[in-house]
């Protein structure tokens, strides 16, 4: 029997939501023009030395984090992600899908995100900010997520800051994220653009 199409069959154990480890977390030395290159594809101004690279397994393409003080929950991170949660290629729909799963393992309850249209990397973008809380652990997290298009797909930048639920957020460190955003550019077309 000849079937009219190729068939991709997935045998699965329900609940496994892992992602493939297909990325190379290679950060090149800083070049003469003060740019750092990751995976020969992403160039950006690196943050100051107190920021450390995030492991790129799971949902991060390239990113950095810092921990302030002795409280381990006082962590701030920012990242670029080539495959943000969700699947839609519409910015608003993707934002909704994203927040359904973002930090799901931390059992965060998100408030309704506030959104605004922006221009990022010279193209249309959608910025969402929201605060999530984890009443069990007594933590809260501020998130700022920027969605934009890369070719046919949607990519995202995100900034998160964790604090004890009683402590204020520190927005001053967001300047490092902004510096990352302002300098970020692609050195070559994406896998999907070349497919």
């Amino acid at each position, binding site marked *: *029997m*000849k*079937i*009219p*199409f*190729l*068939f*991709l*069959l*997935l*045998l*699965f*154990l*329900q*609940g*496994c*939501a*892992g*992602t*493939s*480890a*297909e990325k190379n977390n290679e950060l090149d030395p800083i070049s003469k023009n003060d740019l750092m290159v990751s995976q020969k594809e992403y160039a950006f101004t690196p943050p100051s030395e107190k920021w450390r690279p995030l492991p790129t397994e799971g949902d991060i393409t390239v990113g950095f984090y810092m921990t302030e003080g002795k409280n381990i929950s006082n962590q701030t991170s920012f990242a670029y992600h080539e*495959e943000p*949660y*969700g*699947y839609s*290629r519409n910015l608003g729909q993707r934002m909704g*899908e994203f927040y359904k*799963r973002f930090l799901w393992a931390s059992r965060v309850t998100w408030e309704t995100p506030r959104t605004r249209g922006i221009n990022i990397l010279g193209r249309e973008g959608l910025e969402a900010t929201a605060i999530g809380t984890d009443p069990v652990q007594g933590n809260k997290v501020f998130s700022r997520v920027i969605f934009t298009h890369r070719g*046919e*797909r949607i990519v995202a930048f995100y900034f998160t800051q964790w604090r004890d639920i009683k402590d204020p957020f520190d927005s001053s460190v967001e300047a490092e994220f902004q510096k990352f955003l302002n300098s970020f550019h692609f050195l070559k077309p994406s*896998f*999907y653009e070349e*497919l």
Partner: protein
Amino acid sequence: MEGHQRNLYLYERFNARVAGVSRDDVTTLKYWAQSLGLSFPLMSNISGYLGLNLGALAQGSPVFSRRTVIIDRQGMIRYAKDGSPNYREILEVLKKLHEEDGS
């Protein structure tokens, strides 16, 4: 699974269709697909014969191991890989088969 949902438009472009197979019952799969927003078919194979035929059911195991299989238009298995799906590799295989096929 969300990665496959994200790539559906590319599978369509390469004339490929995707389906998932699990030993869970239909009701469980229905709610699970809804929670993830999956729009492609999920098949309930409680008896496990599909997993047995495709090498994803170890003897005595109550569940399938994770396996991705690509079957061509002639019904031949052209790709099989265990573990978490490598989405980019899958797309490259589908593209190659589509080009071979000329469809």
